[in-house]
């Protein structure tokens, strides 16, 4: 077949459509997405207020915990002489992992022309922004002297002391900082056309002014669109390497060390996959919420859950393979500390958590081989929650196992979490949910212009 023939061959009709028939017009899309914001009386906000109250309370708990940590010191946590790191580091890695998926969905799927991303990328990006922000809080509150966190920056000072560039924590600092800035810009750029839509559909002068201000004078001209597409695509091209490097650097926080169970070359890619894995799981949870809360069944379809479940299934296999590689290498390498650590993982004091993590991350997602499970929102939701728990367990065990079971048996000590450990962890979840609730209340949770494009491409 000649090249020309390929070019002229008609595109075969897609087996899967990413919208329900009722939503397949440009107006319908606008209507569906803006209705919760502009026709509030049509929606029961009871669940929203309930969630806001609960997450508000947790956020208050988080603030109290942070206040206590700042005033009384990190001694309030369960960290000790051997296990000097604890929940804060695990929480940080977990949140930054969650913060991965938005960029992945937006940039990588965009570059890979995965059209279905259109109806999920907005709240996934918001999720990224919030998760990365929370992730950024943890390394600071985890410091013994958090007031001096800025010493990690190369600011001009009278002592002419710079940061120590060989430290993975410095790499990490820059990685988080650039990622948060990138996420904000990327999210905002993608939002501009929709803000203009909101402005145009506003029922009050205040709303029109507010949205209008943020819409930066967007008029939807071809020139605007051309500039927008160029910028968005360019950002997406930046985003993919950034997200990979960010999670590689997070992996190097551990891998660039000397400790058994950390000093492993597999860590950077394994962290990228793990981050994508937990990020997707969180996107699924949020998608189910948005779909149910704002009756967006028309835009977020069963097909979306189906495809995301497939991604998680793939990731779970990669994760299982990564774990097995670690075990194999410990055995094959033959070093006493490495082998001893693997035995400790399976049989030591934290073993129940380790088995739970294997179940959540490797076993449970295998249910996605069955199409009926993939196409059940409840089932996908439950497995996603399990994955999120499993991924948190994985992070805390990476920290605990190595530090509790290092080279010298004389210093083997366990970590016993305190109420402040739990409050910082669960409180941060509350803060995240609260931020997300505020977001869906004021900003279109689904990218209207991208879904319109999708509807247009799919044809009605």
């Amino acid at each position, binding site marked *: 077949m000649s090249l020309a023939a390929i070019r002229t061959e008609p595109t075969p009709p897609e087996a899967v459509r990413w919208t329900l028939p009722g939503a397949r017009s440009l107006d319908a899309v606008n209507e569906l997405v803006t209705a919760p914001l502009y026709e509030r009386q049509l929606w029961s906000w009871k669940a929203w207020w309930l969630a806001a109250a609960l997450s508000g309370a947790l956020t208050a708990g988080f603030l109290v915990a942070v206040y206590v940590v700042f005033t009384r010191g990190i001694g309030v946590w369960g960290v000790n002489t051997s296990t000097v790191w604890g929940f804060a580091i695990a929480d940080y890695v977990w949140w930054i992992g969650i913060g991965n998926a938005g960029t992945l969905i937006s940039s990588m799927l965009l570059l890979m022309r995965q059209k279905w991303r259109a109806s999920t990328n907005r709240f996934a990006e918001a999720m990224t922004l919030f998760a990365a922000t929370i992730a950024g809080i943890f390394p600071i509150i985890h410091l013994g002297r958090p007031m001096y966190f800025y010493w990690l920056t190369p600011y001009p000072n009278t002592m002419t002391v710079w940061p120590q560039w060989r430290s993975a924590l410095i790499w990490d600092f820059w990685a988080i900082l650039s990622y948060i800035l990138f996420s904000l810009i990327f999210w905002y750029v993608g939002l501009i056309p929709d803000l203009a839509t909101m402005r145009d559909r506003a029922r009050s002068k205040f709303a029109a002014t507010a949205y209008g201000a943020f819409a930066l004078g967007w008029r939807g001209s071809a020139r605007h669109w051309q500039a927008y597409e160029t910028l968005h695509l360019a950002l997406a091209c930046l985003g993919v390497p950034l997200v990979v490097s960010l999670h590689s650097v997070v992996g190097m926080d551990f891998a660039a060390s000397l*400790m058994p169970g950390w000093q492993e070359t597999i860590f950077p890619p394994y962290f990228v996959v793990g981050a994508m894995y937990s990020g997707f799981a969180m996107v699924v949870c949020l998608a189910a919420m948005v779909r149910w809360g704002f009756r967006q069944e028309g835009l977020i379809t069963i097909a979306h859950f189906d495809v995301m479940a497939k991604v998680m299934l793939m990731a779970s296999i990669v994760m299982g393979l990564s774990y097995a590689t670690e075990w194999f290498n410990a055995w094959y390498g033959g070093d006493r500390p490495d082998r001893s650590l693997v035995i400790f993982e399976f049989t030591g004091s934290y073993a129940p958590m380790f088995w739970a993590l294997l179940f959540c991350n490797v076993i449970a997602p295998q249910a996605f081989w069955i199409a009926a499970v993939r196409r059940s929102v409840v089932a996908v939701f439950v497995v996603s929650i399990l994955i999120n728990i499993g991924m948190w367990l994985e992070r805390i065990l990476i920290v605990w196992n190595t530090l509790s079971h290092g*080279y010298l048996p004389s210093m083997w000590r366990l970590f016993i979490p305190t109420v402040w450990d739990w409050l910082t962890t669960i409180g941060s979840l509350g803060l995240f949910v609260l931020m997300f609730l505020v977001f869906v209340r004021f900003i279109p949770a689904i990218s209207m212009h991208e879904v319109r494009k999708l509807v247009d491409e799919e044809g009605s």
Partner: protein
Amino acid sequence: MNKQLRLDQANMRGPPNSEVDRRAALKLFVSGAALALASCGRPAEQIVPYVEIPDGMTPGLPMRFASALPLAGYGRGVIVTSVEGRPIKVDGNPRHPASLGSTDVFAEATVLSLYDPDRSQAPYSGGRVQDWSAFEAALQPRLDKARARHGAGLALLTGRITSPTLIAQIEAFTKALPQVKWYRYEPSEDDAIRNGAILAFNRPATLLPRFADARVVLTLDADPLGAGPEQIRFARDITQARRTHVPDQSLRLYAVEPAWTLTGALADHRLALRPELVRNVAIEIARSLGASVPELKGPPEAEHFAKAAAADLTARQGGGLVLAGPRQPPEVHALCHWINNELSAPVDFIAPVDPLNIGGIASLKSFVADARAGAIETLMILGANPVYDAPGDLAIADCVAAVPFSAQLGLYRDETAARCTWHLPLTHVLEGWSDIRAFDGTASIVQPLIRPLYDSRTAHQIMALLSNATGPSSFDMVRGYWQQAGKHGGDFEDWWRQTLQDGVVADSAAAKISLPAPQMPEVAPVSGGENFTLAFAPDPSLFDGSFANNAWLQECPKPFTKQVWGNALHLAESDAQSLGVVDGDMVRLVAGKAVLEAPVLVRQGQASHTVATTLGYGRAGAGSLGTAVGFDVYRLRPSDSPWALADVSVSKIGGRQNLLLTQHFFELEGEAKDLQPRFALADLAKKPDLGLSKPGGNPATLYPPHDYDTYEWAMVIDTAACIGCNACVVACQAENNVPIVGPDEIAVGRDMHWLRIDDYVIGGKPGFSPVPCMHCEHAPCEPVCPVAASIHDSEGLNLQVYNRCVGTRFCQSNCPYKVRRFNFYGYADGEEYKSFGDDIVKAVFNPDVTVRGRGVMEKCTYCVQRISRARRAAEKDHRKIHDGEIVTACQAACPTRAIAFGDLSDANSRINALRAEPQAYALLGELGTRPRTTYLARLENPNPDFGKAQS
């Protein structure tokens, strides 16, 4: 300083309901201010510095004075460092026979007890603070009455006293008033040893082993390396005799003991036997030497052990030595004297240094009898705390309370003070003049380093008061005594000066006495019963309990168990299994009417049917830190056999108690044995390559080496010489302002010791490895610190810049040795445990070392302040620092000289020679960290015929 003292003067604790009106408050303020101005500074009398005699003190330059510190009544010579009038550090006095320049944990911790805010600060009676004149007024009519009756009704109760001046005072007093009674009791009593000598020789005599001449030593329930006044000296002698690598010339140590002691841990052969059965081994040895005693019938391992030991002992003519411990009855001691005589053992005898001519327990019993009979009307207790530490069956508290007028002179308002009508504050040993004899009779003058912080009195002053001699100070009395008794040949001033400077009175050691051939005692083998025996021992951290309020000692991890802030009942594994208990389970121990409920700690290698425990805990009046820590076993202690309680039944009861351990028990197996390699001397000669990770034998690296321009500091720790005594741990704490964290923090897994002693069991035998910072040349902590707070200096030191540290703790995460310590709270800086944070405690800080605040990491610095001091001195003289010029705090403390420090760049340095030893190794050297701290493997000298004898 002024402010601190003023606060302490004002803090004099009155009864809770005492009302202070405005005028009284002003009076207190004025008197407090006046006292503060007057009391801060050097003692009024001239004291003579040991090393340098400045023309007036140079601020910033520490001054060092020789003195001596008591333990169980015997002195250990020390040199105390004083900075601007504050004593801050105790080191050993090389000229003193009980120190030889080293210290033990108790000597090191003495400076902290000086500044203990819970110390008694004023006389106390009738529920309120009094002044001395009130006491004198109350005492006078009683003294007058007693004098009229030649002292009848007046009694003294003291601990062991070896102070020549005080003894002379008491003797003069009792000579003038012959009816005065003097009772003398020491909780770490050795009556059995004393009575054993009487049994053998018909006269009291003290045995002094000459370990240097010994080739085979058998200890029978004896612990010459354990805590006690001879520990430092014996530890040095024994390890010194084991330094050679020639198996035949090295001292071989056999130990028979019910529970682990430091001696048992060092021993080449050890047998765990319950206390009663230990005598069987002695009898078997005597039999092999020709004594007509019945043959030992089992247990087989004891039989075998005794045969092998006997063969070895007799094979080294003149080099065999048998030592029995205070738990063994007098007959066993007499038997050992007989054995030693047969072996021509390297032992000397001296007349007892303790002058009391009856045993301590006997003395205490006569006190009880007299007190019950109402024969004591006025009781003066000098420095002792019998209500706490007397054997429980004597019910001494009632006896003391029954005396109409009793006054206790003590450092704390303790249990005894609570039963006395008066309590009087005692001057701390670092505050007042006195003198004291060592275990071998060598006398030292006790020099004060600081004026008494409170309005306290020495025992000398109290005796003067009793003798109605007003006026002379302790200084006058001590000096006066030596003017009479010292061998100064007329030139007293020079002699006095020299004696103060040396820290020992020349030629004052007790003369050796020659004794007749010992008599063979009547002794027969016994078999153990079904019940348990409770074996007591002095605590390695608190000794007899008198150190209970010392935070450094409370938090000093005990050898073997690593327990802090508490004690436990130690049970053998087999007994624990049959009782169904694990570490921390509560058991009930019943002995007659006495019942004790306490937590269990299971110990591998302890004799079955033995419950072992240590004295010193369960204090009711120790002070805010030491009260109600652990459980009290004195009340179970029988006066007839103070170190063992037979016929004890043990049963499991519900409940658990969280034991505070800084290391959990690990038996090392397989490759993990490399963490603490051990070799037999015989193998050392045979194998040139021991398969060790050698110092300097580094794995390849891509990184360029560091440039070192001047010195390259390094440390070598000889685990063959380490006996696990903890002196280095406490010395490091004292030198480097290392805070304590308190029991709650320990429970979470936090501690601050810069130097820890890892205790691993290999093949059932424990071994000790002190672990300070390794000062790696490729330190894993350095590249991971984001703010460059962990850095490498040009001399190879791995430094921590506290000011720069933000507390990421990545350095400790990445430290394979886990030697870094994090200030999770302001342990030394505002968030101290209980009274450890009181202002006065800050006086103990070493001004050369930064006090670390919350949120920063810290660790061993190789005593960088001492390196700096040496460097300053060397630069002034335009020379390099000499080899051996820098002595780290741990090195200085070590009684066995197991720690060496020096410069690697100096090819002739001792440290280079040690690193070239065949048994030298780098801990985890295979990681490529290139540690500067390296080790010498533990060397053992087992009897090659030991196994053969079995078959």
